[in-house]
């Protein structure tokens, strides 16, 4: 018994370590490339380690892009997109999972349909809406496509479906109305799902580069990913500077993740005792 436990532990660690190596590879590559010269980064056969450690690429990246603005824009965009996604998706997810109303299936199929549509077909129509509202070149424009989240709705609906009916019924008998049942009883139970949706929405918003580039022109109104994309020339790209810039851009995301990481663990503690 003890032996088999040890074996399973070894297998677990081995799998995690091998997986980590595979997953961390591009990140290590970014760090190595950010200290190379352009010539080294393009060389064949490729070199793995840079000859010298260059801090120059970082200063170049900081000089060529308004990082302070880009950090602020990215954080604001993520913040609002997450708030909207969590708020509206929780409401809709709860309603679709727990409430009875006419036309529910048809309305839910609209949610599903959005997920089927290729995002490229939205770019021009949504740009026109933003332009008509006079919002081009603002943070609001960055948030715009993320006002509602079909995926979030579907994802949280599943989370609410997994909550036993009795919990809702008990709340109802205690005299809670629908809204109170939702905010006081049900919403807290989906805590780890909400944390996952937050990370998911944030990463999605962070890596979106097409939309910010199309809707905002001013470099001071760009997000980190889209601002970095402007470092690509038409014919050539300075990869070491791009990598240095990308490393700087990753910082807030990693911090955000570490923060939610904690939420995840607390989430277990909460639901674990239910």
């Amino acid at each position, binding site marked *: 018994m003890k032996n088999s436990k040890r074996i399973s532990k070894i297998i*677990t*660690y081995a*799998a995690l370590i091998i997986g*980590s190596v595979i*997953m*961390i590879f*591009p990140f290590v*590559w*970014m760090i190595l490339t950010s200290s190379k010269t352009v010539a080294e980064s393009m060389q*064949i*056969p*490729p070199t793995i380690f840079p000859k010298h450690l260059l801090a120059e690429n970082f200063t170049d990246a900081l000089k060529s892009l308004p990082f302070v603005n880009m950090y602020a824009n990215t954080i604001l965009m993520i913040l609002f997109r997450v708030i909207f996604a969590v708020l509206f*998706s929780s*409401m*809709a997810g*709860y*309603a679709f999972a727990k*409430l*009875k*109303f006419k036309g*529910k299936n048809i*309305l839910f199929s*609209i*949610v*599903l*349909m*959005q997920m*089927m*549509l*290729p995002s*490229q*077909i*939205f770019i021009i*129509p*949504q740009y026109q*809406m933003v332009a008509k509202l006079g919002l081009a070149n603002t943070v609001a424009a960055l948030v*715009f496509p993320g006002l*509602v*989240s*079909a*995926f979030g*709705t579907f*994802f949280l609906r*599943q989370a609410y479906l*997994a909550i*036993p009916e009795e919990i809702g019924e008990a709340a109802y008998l205690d005299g809670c109305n629908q809204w109170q049942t939702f905010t006081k009883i049900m919403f807290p139970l*989906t805590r*780890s*799902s909400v944390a996952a949706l937050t*990370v998911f929405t944030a990463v999605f918003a962070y*890596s979106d580069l097409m939309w910010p580039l199309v809707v905002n022109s001013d470099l001071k109104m760009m997000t980190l990913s889209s601002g970095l994309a402007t470092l690509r020339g038409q014919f050539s790209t300075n*990869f070491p500077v*791009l990598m240095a810039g990308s490393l700087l851009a*990753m910082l807030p995301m*990693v911090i955000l*993740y570490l923060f939610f*990481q904690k939420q*995840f663990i607390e*989430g277990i503690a909460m*639901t674990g005792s239910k």
Partner: protein
Amino acid sequence: MKKGKISTAARREQAWGYLMIAPTIIGLIVLNVWPFIQTIYASFCKHLGFGHYKFVGLENYVSMFQDTDFWRATGNTLIFCVLTVPVGIFISLLVAILLNAKVKFKGGFRTIFFLPMVCAPAAVTMVWRWIFNSEYGILNQIFGSHIAWITDPKVALISCAIVAVWSSIGYDAVLLLSGLQNISKSYYEAASIDGASKITQFFKITLPMVSPTLFVTMIMRLMTSLKVYDLIYMMVEETNPALTSVQSLIYLFYRESFVAGSRGLGSAIAVWTVLIIGVATVFQFIGQKKWVNYEV
């Protein structure tokens, strides 16, 4: 009296339902459904330029169905989906379970698995291109092989699938992990007392309990893989001899709509893609009744 009360309660519940879905549904209609209706209309039109269209009936669909590249793209997309979704979901579930297990440095491992999601796409592309490089790539060096991973039409789609699976693990594992965390520990404790093995526990507790989250992750992954574009675009350039063997539907759509300016034909391809995804989703929803467990 009693009957009236019930129907009042039901009516109130219905009103709450509409109220709570209203922001989402209105937003989706304005932001997404309306543009899609415009796309459907455009698929029956010729694009004259700058959003001006002329109705031409089925012309775009006729030329689309006659195009061999279009059928190859349809095939490529379906094969890509089959190659990536089952493997990707399986690995992601495994990773999520490992990350949920009692291990040291859990936070560290989780952060590492999260990193690829926020790495610069350019870095990801550079690394994989180096791994796959036929002369200097690490893959051929390890296996002592001479496979042209990116340029051989027979292999290129598999290479793209490997990258796709790799880059989806982070996302899917985050979602599945939350599903695993919603499972109360008391179930496992009870099962341990009953003497159930880990494997029995997995099939009797973990899988059924995580199935609602697994289902939504699968649906999302299926849809995403049928809409694949960025990844193939990054790995395979226009002059790559393997292009027609890896070109996906949305890649073709993008080239028609945004490069060639034929938005009518592009829209027809988009509509076709949505149809395929719709059919696949319907099957998934029918199938879920067999394995997704909503009763806890």
